[in-house]
């Protein structure tokens, strides 16, 4: 009964979304206040209906209602409750419903709280949201219905892929989707602005917080996914340039560019048509990501729906949404009045430089991801593009970007003086070199490590440069302490946010460079009582025992780590054999320190009473996740800035 109510609500949602689109767009064209208000009402109704549908599906998962195809093929009664719930979006149909739910949520928030917006702009934004929501609702209902029933329900379900039964991955999709779908607001604002033919600072002030919020979620989502890959796949890697990872990375790159270019629109009234294009592209890349993952166009270890029928639908949707909006852009964008001019060496110039690199990076990832498809479609056979391509493209792009990231924020608007800024940064430059030199010597001072030392210098340059900029704002070390303290208090949250985000990237670079340059790997057959040397510790296999889990059986190894004969701690990785579906997984055991991770894995027993074990020393890798968190925190802090509150929902603090 509850299931049918959910199904019905979803069907109704399709029509409400279409009504929302029609009312909003037509109402704004006519200037009809009644129609425009009705569009907002439809937005709220859509949120309620989709919410009911999502709740109904969740309910079916919680009570393990195997009369639903979706529940039967993805859940199991013996699964822990957390994974019953995360199972809702751990499959194609459910994850699309989550997409739609978040889309309706954002549309509803604009409809309810967007009172400060010009009525016609708001109606158009809500209308475009309705259009996208309608397309998704139709896609779910016609090709991927999560509410489909089976005539003869099975006694139990097929279970969820055990790799996905993990807290990191339980929350990965919601964050990712909050990011993807959050960019839909920037998209809707861009389309609305193109229809209105007006882009100004007020427009940018509305778009920026939304983009920022979406960016924060996407950053966290990607970091969670990467962290999961690190500890769950058991190979010590954290990024595989897998098409599905790229699908989330491309909108992130484009969204990062958008954040910075919207800043220029807001502050200087320049780069308007470029910002509009970026808004369209960022959301298009989110849709494209969905297409790539869901249609099976590109093989990937993650993909769980390979079906040309669905693919064709998404393709049609992509053609309509992206093609339509780019066409609109081609027609309307030339008419946008361009605003303030600036010199190449200026704050705007720096932000534009960021934009060029970020878009080039997004373009290269797109090219690398789609290249196998291009070759195959042209009859060239099957090829795969791997990490070597991406690394060789990415590193040369990121180096100048990172160098400029410490300089850009110090340039003045309109026309800057590069030489003065460089002189202000001379201590930072020296400190970065010294830091890199020390790290290089500590790592053994080998010639082969010079590139890695360069990476360390970049990270230090960016971290110290960002802090230096903040210090100069406060006149730290120049003014008396009391005055500096007052000045620190006066630094706007947005500036703190920037420093955190840039500094976070610097920390992440430490992790990336450290783990990719100085990783140590030990793979061997071990008997109980044997010891293996890993980096600076001895790893002793103490015992192996069989332990039962709720829906799996596990082989649990206990390793004793000791340094110079002194016991440090014990790590207990497991190898789990799940029953439904029958799949083995590795539960790694990791000990994190400030300098790196000790990472242990136990695999299947080998003949002769020994076990295959793998150990990794992953230097500096905890800084990668810490850096991603700090970046997201930076976005959050910036979002709290009072100046942004114009754009966020009219809430507690506004008068």
């Amino acid at each position, binding site marked *: 009964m509850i299931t049918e109510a959910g199904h019905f609500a979803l069907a109704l949602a399709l029509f409400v979304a279409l009504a929302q689109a029609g009312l909003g767009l037509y109402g704004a064209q006519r200037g009809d206040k009644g129609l425009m208000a009705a569009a907002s009402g439809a937005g709220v109704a859509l949120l309620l209906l989709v919410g009911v549908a999502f709740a109904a599906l969740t309910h079916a998962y919680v009570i393990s209602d195997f009369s639903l195809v979706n529940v039967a093929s993805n859940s199991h009664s013996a699964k822990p409750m957390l994974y019953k719930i995360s199972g809702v979006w751990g499959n194609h149909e459910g994850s699309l419903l989550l997409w739609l739910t978040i889309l309706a949520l954002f549309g509803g928030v604009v409809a309810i709280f967007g009172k400060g917006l010009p009525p016609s702009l708001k109606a158009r934004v809500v209308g475009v949201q309705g259009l996208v929501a309608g397309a998704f609702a139709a896609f779910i209902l016609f090709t991927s219905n999560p509410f489909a029933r089976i005539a003869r329900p099975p006694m139990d379900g097929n279970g969820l892929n055990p790799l996905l039964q993990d807290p990191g991955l339980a929350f990965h999709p919601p964050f990712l989707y909050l990011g993807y779908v959050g960019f839909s607001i920037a998209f809707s604002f861009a389309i609305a602005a193109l229809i209105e033919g007006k882009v100004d600072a007020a427009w940018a002030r509305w778009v920026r917080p939304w983009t920022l919020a979406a960016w924060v979620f996407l950053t966290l989502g990607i970091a969670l996914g990467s962290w999961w890959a690190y500890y769950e796949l058991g190979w010590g890697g954290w990024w595989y340039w897998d098409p599905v990872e790229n699908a989330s990375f491309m909108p992130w790159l484009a969204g990062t560019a958008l954040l910075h270019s919207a800043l220029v629109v807001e502050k200087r009234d320049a780069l308007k*048509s470029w910002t509009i*294009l970026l808004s*369209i*592209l960022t959301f*298009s890349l989110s849709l494209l990501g969905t*297409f790539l993952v869901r*249609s*099976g*166009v*590109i*093989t990937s270890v993650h993909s769980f729906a390979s079906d*040309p029928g669905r*693919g*064709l639908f998404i*393709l049609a949707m*992509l*053609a309509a949404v*992206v*093609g339509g909006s*780019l*066409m609109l*852009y*081609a027609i309307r*964008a*030339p*008419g946008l009045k361009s605003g303030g001019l600036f010199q190449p060496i200026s704050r705007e110039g720096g932000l534009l430089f960021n934009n060029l690199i970020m878009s080039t990076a997004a373009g290269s990832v797109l090219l690398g991801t*789609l290249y*196998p*498809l*291009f070759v*195959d*479609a042209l009859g060239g056979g*099957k090829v795969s593009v791997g990490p070597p391509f991406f690394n060789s493209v990415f590193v040369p792009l990121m180096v100048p970007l990172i160098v400029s990231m410490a300089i850009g924020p110090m340039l003045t608007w309109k026309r800057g003086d590069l030489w003065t800024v460089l002189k202000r940064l001379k201590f930072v430059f020296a400190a970065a070199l010294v830091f890199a030199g020390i790290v290089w010597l500590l790592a053994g001072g080998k010639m082969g490590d010079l590139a890695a030392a360069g990476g360390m210098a970049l990270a230090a340059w960016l971290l110290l440069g960002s802090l230096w900029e903040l210090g100069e704002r406060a006149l730290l070390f120049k003014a008396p302490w009391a005055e500096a303290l007052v000045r620190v208090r006066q630094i706007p949250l947005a500036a703190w946010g920037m420093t955190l985000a840039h500094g976070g990237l610097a920390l992440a670079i430490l992790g990336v460079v450290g783990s990719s340059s100085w990783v140590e790997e030990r793979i061997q057959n071990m008997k109980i009582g044997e010891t293996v040397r890993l980096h600076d510790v001895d790893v002793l296999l103490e015992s192996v025992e069989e332990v039962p889990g709720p829906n799996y059986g596990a082989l649990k190894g206990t390793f004793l780590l000791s340094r110079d004969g002194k016991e440090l701690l014990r790590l207990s990785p497991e190898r789990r054999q799940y029953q439904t579906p*029958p*799949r*083995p997984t590795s539960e790694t055991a990791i000990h994190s320190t400030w300098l790196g991770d000790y990472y242990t894995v136990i695999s*299947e027993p080998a*003949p002769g009473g020994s076990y295959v074990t793998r150990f990794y020393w992953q230097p500096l890798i905890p800084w990668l996740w810490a850096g991603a968190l700090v970046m997201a925190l930076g976005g959050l802090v910036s979002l709290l800035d009072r100046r942004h509150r114009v754009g966020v929902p009219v809430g507690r603090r506004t008068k």
Partner: protein
Amino acid sequence: MKNRWAYLLPVILFLGLLGFFTRGLFLDPRAIPSVMIDKPAPQMDLAALPGRGDTGLKTEHLKGQVSLVNIFGSWCVSCVAEHPYLMKIKAQKIVPIMGIDWRDDPVQGALWLQKNGDPYDRVGVDPAPGHASVDFGVTGAPESFIVDKEGRIRYKHVGIIDDRVWSEILLPIIRELQK
């Protein structure tokens, strides 16, 4: 405006991309065509696994009945996942399963079968570099081929055999060929 055409560039690029997507949608990313389909299985004479008691696998063994030729190896992780299903197929006694222990050390292969169970009627070892199997059209493990009564290769499946692959694809073909 003089550079009005530049604004058309994004949509033109996108349309090109769309063309590729449409084409790509109808290509199966996993389908690797086997040039050997409908051709007689090539000549091969593979040695037996130690302690297994058969005489290895020769081309002649593939004639006279429909058989499922399965490529595995003790080094192959996915084969572990596939293995229980092969044991089930063996228990149903529908079709003989011929194993090719590919690019493997015979001792390791034999130990692997001892540990995981042995679903095969015959097993031949094709040690590295594994040319005999490459002639057969093998690109990786696990892979499975359906060979008809005349010893011609009729179907190739890349990847793990599971419930769906077996009941929806392989079994109907085998039933048809067994008529």
